[in-house]
């Protein structure tokens, strides 16, 4: 059912005029006086964050030492990608969430440079840090309030790629020069390339890696751990979550591994596990879970509010990177929910027409391109939610009792097993295929956009089953191939063309805004 926006959108309607052939856009979007001024004040806020970062001499030094830092020249450009066409509450929600993520990443870089042996070399600080795998649930750090989990791959690789699509290409080339094949996932391959290129900050008392989601990340972790241990003397623990995470008989093993990870951190940092801090964090984890479920319920209505790449990005940061440890997320969650409730009450829409309700599934590259917002503005397809946001919905024990202390290990293991990606790409047929149709039903989706990551083997075996079942259920299944963070394999336009081709040939539809069907952003950041 097509839903038309009862209110005419203020400001610009033809978004194609903003794009140029260069790295950046011609100008920013005119959103009407109120929303343009709002967007401007958020821009000023981001300028203030960056200014506070730049005034520290060690951070300037870091800018000159680390290649990946140059990607942060494009922070504002990255923000503009995610706000294209947005007005009213959806604009405010996107800014609130994304600005918080940017502030969090800025803090992470500042921490990395503070402890880095090449820059700040603050030894006392470094001794309180544990290098934690980017793709790890930080659950095993919930009871260490005085130890810092440093997710150094986040600013180095992941967040850098949000702002600049070419951020990883140099590191991929380095990895491949050293004989690593080019057909593994470019994300762990780029991380391995950063390690080979000696471009990671070096800090921390010890490190914890996880068997994240694929063969590629196992390969990358091996190389990174070797350098950490043999060159820098940083002992590294391997936290190995079972792949069949829904099976009861693996939970005891998973809980035992969490116990060992905690003991490893205690041994190397000299800090003791604090149950009070753990249960405080557990309360915040539950609060975040409840708020995420409420946001999804709002997105199940005719007027979804918080969606797109930023929904996914915020969930990743809050669920996995934070995992209840930072109380600031509670305030932001509350603010985001209040905005979404106001938006749904006022029937706010982010485009002039909603034609299809879509669930985004598969291994997704939507951080480095503005695909989800483009789908909305160009074709009126609303991305209700995505695979990485459909994580744990179970409440964990939050009262400090002797029984719950034992249960806590199982809860942390459960969270670790259900980190983003792993909870869907591993764990069997049910979590990847069956539950997708359940979500389609709950969220009244008539379309699934299937990201097909050509270097990822995790979903390949299920291709035929997705096709067969989508046909049987009458759901439009749009396959869109990409190569995650390597834009040389699939350019942005090549990605968009696949979607447009489906919309024209199968759906027989014309774009809402034809000016953005083809964009000259191949060389853009």
């Amino acid at each position, binding site marked *: 059912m097509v839903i038309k926006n009862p209110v005419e959108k203020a400001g610009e309607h033809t978004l194609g005029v903003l794009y140029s052939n*260069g*790295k*950046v*856009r*011609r*100008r*920013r979007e*005119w959103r009407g006086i109120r929303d*343009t001024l709002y967007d*401007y004040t958020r*821009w*000023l806020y981001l*300028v203030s964050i960056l200014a506070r970062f730049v005034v520290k001499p060690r951070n300037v030094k870091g*800018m*000159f*030492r680390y*290649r990946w*830092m*140059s990607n942060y*020249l*494009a922070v*504002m*450009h990255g923000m503009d990608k995610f706000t294209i066409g947005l007005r009213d509450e959806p604009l405010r929600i996107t800014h609130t969430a994304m600005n918080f993520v940017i502030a969090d990443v800025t803090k992470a870089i500042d921490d990395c440079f503070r402890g880095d042996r090449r820059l700040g070399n603050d030894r006392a600080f470094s001794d309180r840090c544990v290098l934690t795998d980017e793709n790890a649930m930080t659950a095993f750090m919930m009871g260490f309030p005085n130890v810092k989990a440093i997710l150094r791959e986040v600013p180095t690789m992941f967040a850098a790629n949000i702002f600049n699509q070419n951020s990883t290409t140099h590191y991929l080339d*380095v990895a491949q020069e*050293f*004989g*690593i094949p080019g057909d593994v996932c470019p994300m762990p391959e780029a991380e391995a390339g950063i390690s*080979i*290129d*000696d*471009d990671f900050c070096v800090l921390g008392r010890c490190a914890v890696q996880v068997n994240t989601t694929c063969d590629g990340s196992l390969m990358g972790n091996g*190389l990174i751990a070797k350098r950490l241990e043999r060159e820098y003397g940083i002992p590294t623990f391997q936290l190995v979550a079972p792949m069949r995470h829904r099976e009861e008989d693996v939970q005891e093993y998973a809980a035992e591994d969490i116990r060992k990870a905690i003991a490893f951190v205690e041994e190397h940092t000299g800090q003791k596990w604090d149950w009070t801090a753990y249960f405080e964090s557990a309360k915040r984890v539950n609060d975040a879970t409840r708020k995420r479920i409420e946001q999804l319920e709002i997105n199940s209505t005719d007027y979804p509010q918080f969606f797109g790449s930023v929904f996914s990005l915020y969930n990743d940061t809050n669920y996995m990177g934070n995992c209840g440890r930072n109380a600031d997320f509670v305030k932001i969650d509350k603010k985001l929910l209040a905005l979404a409730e106001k938006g749904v009450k006022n029937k706010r829409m982010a485009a002039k027409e909603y034609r299809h309700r879509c669930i985004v599934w598969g291994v997704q590259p939507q951080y480095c391109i503005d695909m989800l917002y483009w789908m909305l503005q160009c074709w009126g397809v609303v991305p209700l939610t995505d695979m990485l946001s459909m994580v744990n919905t179970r409440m964990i024990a939050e009262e400090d009792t002797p029984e719950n202390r034992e249960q806590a290990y199982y809860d942390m293991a459960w969270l670790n097993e259900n980190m983003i990606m792993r909870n869907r790409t591993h764990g069997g047929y049910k979590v990847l295929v069956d539950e997708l149709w359940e979500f389609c039903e709950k969220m009244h989706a008539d379309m699934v956009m299937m990201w097909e990551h050509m270097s990822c083997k995790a979903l390949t075996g299920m291709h035929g089953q997705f096709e067969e079942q989508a046909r049987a259920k009458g759901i439009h299944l749009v396959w869109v191939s990409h190569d995650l963070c390597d834009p040389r394999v699939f350019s942005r336009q090549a990605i968009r063309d696949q979607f447009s081709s489906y919309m024209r040939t199968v759906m027989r539809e014309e774009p809402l805004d034809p000016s953005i069907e083809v964009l000259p952003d191949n060389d853009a*950041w």
Partner: protein
Amino acid sequence: MSKTLLRFFLKLFAALFGLFAVTFVIYFFNLDMKATSLIEPIFLKHYEKIPRKQYV
């Protein structure tokens, strides 16, 4: 006294308005990103010169 105060507020208003005008022009015409996109190649050239201990 009131004239001095009035002049002070007028000056303050003019300064704030000037600041707003300048920053808004930078914001709207994306001059911040246009400037940083010119800086990027200089940094990339610089990174090539840093000696690195590369190995697997």
